[in-house]
């Protein structure tokens, strides 16, 4: 039997939405308050969904401890309590939640083979969330 397991994690980070390829006015018009010069922050919730056959001996799609350890090391350690704009990952792209969602998806896709990655969902605020399924 194939099941889908989802796990949610919290991390807090700051960012500023600003594109070097736009003028100051374009940035202001495109990003509004998100372009404020000192940045702002969010409590992000990342929801990772994996799928697979339920193992007959453990009753699990994958071991949660493995998933938690991986996310801790590869996602939370990288982004939690940081300023996204200062990271190498965003040297050449705007740290929108869309781009962050894709980055996290690719990190999990590359480094967690224990189950099939279905999607990553990222909640920026209570009102906005983004999903990427590859």
């Amino acid at each position: 039997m194939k099941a889908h397991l989802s796990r949610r994690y919290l991390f807090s980070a700051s960012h500023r939405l600003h594109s070097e390829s736009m003028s100051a006015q374009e940035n202001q018009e495109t990003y509004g308050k998100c372009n404020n010069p000192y940045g702002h922050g969010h409590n992000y919730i990342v929801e990772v969904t994996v799928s697979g056959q339920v193992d007959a001996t453990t009753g699990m799609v994958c071991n949660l401890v493995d998933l938690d350890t991986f996310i801790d090391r590869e996602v939370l350690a990288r982004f939690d309590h940081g300023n996204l704009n200062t990271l190498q990952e965003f040297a050449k792209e705007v740290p929108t939640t869309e781009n962050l969602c894709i980055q996290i998806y690719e990190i999990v896709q590359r480094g967690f083979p224990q189950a099939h990655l279905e999607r990553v969902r990222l909640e920026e605020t209570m009102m906005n969330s983004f999903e990427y399924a590859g």
Partner: protein
Amino acid sequence: MVYLTRKAEFSASHLYHNPEFTPEENRRVFGKCNNPNGHGHNYTLEVTVKGEVDPRSGFVVDLKKLKEVMHREVLDAMDHRFLNKEVPEFLHQIPTTENIAIAIWQRLATKLESAKLHRVRVYETPDLFVDFYGEL
């Protein structure tokens, strides 16, 4: 096609233990979930059914009937129980969130009248849930 979701909560205790594993293996695979006296959760269940809207009633499914089915087939059996000892499916199968979602699907799938079961979602905690779509 319209999808309708009904939520319910139930509180239950369980533990994760495979009698074919050694105590060390059980500890290593299941960690704290293997604590011998069990532990508990407030589970949230979401049952999603799908169907066309009936032109006379405007319903995909009669919610009163869906509630009754959920109570009779699932909640009465699992609420305020120790899953490992009191629910037949878990006498010989570990009551992981995955297996609970599958068991609930199997209890409900043939009992719905006008609508078809689309998804069973079980939250073990607000940050951990399993979806089962009836896929083998």
